[in-house]
């Protein structure tokens, strides 16, 4: 257990999430990718808080802000998906070409 190890795992989570965001067609799967990316950054934050920030509680506050961002991302994501689905009947990105027009 070390700072380097934790950051490595966080980087891997972030990368997997990024892969999902870039590659998936389904909105819900893209959101999963975003969640994983935020998850990775959460882990990195806590690791830095533990090893490098001397346990300053502000580090944990930052982590809580990240988790809030995660919740907001999910809520807005679901709301947007619902709206797009209502208006366009689309649930994968390829169907949204008409959005560009």
């Amino acid at each position, binding site marked *: 257990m070390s700072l380097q190890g934790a950051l490595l795992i966080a980087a891997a989570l972030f990368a997997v999430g990024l892969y999902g965001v870039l590659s998936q067609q389904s909105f819900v799967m893209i959101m999963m990718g975003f969640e994983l990316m935020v998850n990775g950054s959460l882990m990195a934050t806590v690791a830095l808080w533990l090893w490098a920030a001397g346990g300053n509680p502000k580090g944990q506050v930052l982590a809580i802000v990240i988790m809030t961002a995660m919740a907001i991302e999910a809520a807005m994501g679901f709301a947007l998906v*619902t709206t797009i*689905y*209502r208006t366009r*009947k689309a649930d994968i990105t390829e169907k949204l070409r008409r959005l560009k027009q």
Partner: protein
Amino acid sequence: MTARASAGWLTAVAARAEAPVFLARGIGTADADARLRASPRLRVLDSPRAAAVLVVAGCVPTELAEPLARVHDQMAHPRATVWWSGAGDSAPPVGWSHATIVGPRDDIEAAVVAAYRDVITGARCSEQTLLPDVDPAPWRGVGPYGHGGTGMTGGIPYGRPMAGRGDDRRDGLTLDVVLARIGPFFAHLPEGLVLEVTFAGDVVHDLTVKTPPVAGVDGLGARLPDDAVTATMAPDRAVPVAAIELARARQHLRWLARLLHLYGLDALARLVATKALSVPREPQELTALTRRLERCWALGWATRGVGVIDGVSAALWGGPVARAAGIPRDARANSPVYATLGFQPIVHANGDNCDRWRQRLAEAVQAIELAARAGTAVTEPGETIEPAAPPPPADFGDQLAALLIGTEWGDAVATIASLDPDVNAAGYLSKGATV
């Protein structure tokens, strides 16, 4: 202790448990549910999976033989069948030779317990599957990935179509729907009724009656052992009023037991089922029960405003359903003998599930009162007899669809149960009524 000895010890303990029973109701089985449910040595299950004894009650028409076999094959081992044929003269069809056969006047409880004990302890072999164990559709082989279907987002993989989105029934958000077939041995539907339901989540998105309830073939309905009244009931004969009214009370109480079970009140259901088996002769014996149910706010809360039937539809359903909706139509009101007994039809106003159970409970109490007062009075030959549960309307399927589409499945099941379109009970009681 060897493994064998410990297994013997285990089975000996298991054999003393309440026998888990799944009841497959055939024709002429108004009594079966209450008889099994009232017994402390049995446990009636809603699903055959965990049942050890399959009780086939009444006559099973040939078109239901295969579904019945499928229900049988779903049960876990060890399993046994008790064929409770009602009249006792109809042998089970080929393939059911292992089943215990019980006659109408035999002790069904003892037979089920014995079958359970034997099959658990190994004195009797667990029954083999009746149908071949094959997939309904091939699971590999077609399509670009060998997955059995065509197209990524549609097509018919494995021989069945993907779910489609149905029109919205609620708030403008169209969702996926799933088509399923419920019946013919679903515990809370009338015997033989098969519904094709399209579910959007918990909501009944669409509903069609695939097969109507099995109507009693002539004479079959009258085979119930304890319904002496039905045996004597004929249009050209005078029938004792007391017998009619006790049969009515019994029918209503049986129905109430099933409804209480549906709402999860199993202990009360057992109490009511016991009362249905030996209908009390004093109306006071039901006052405690009535008060308890009327005071059970949760039951009122769960049933009020659900499945409202009024106006023309209520008149079509007739009987207690119509009277619960405020239509005071009752053949007994025109009967001279009932007039001498001071009969007044009971009505309720709202026509919802709540008023329907209140209606039937009040009618059961009234029926016991009438029976006590009637003494030896008899109806006039040829007189119309009000059935306890009248036959369902001719456009049964349309009525159900109009009533249930858009409701939640729990409400839909409760509404069907509250209508009590018990074609068999209705069959014979109304046979006395017609002509």
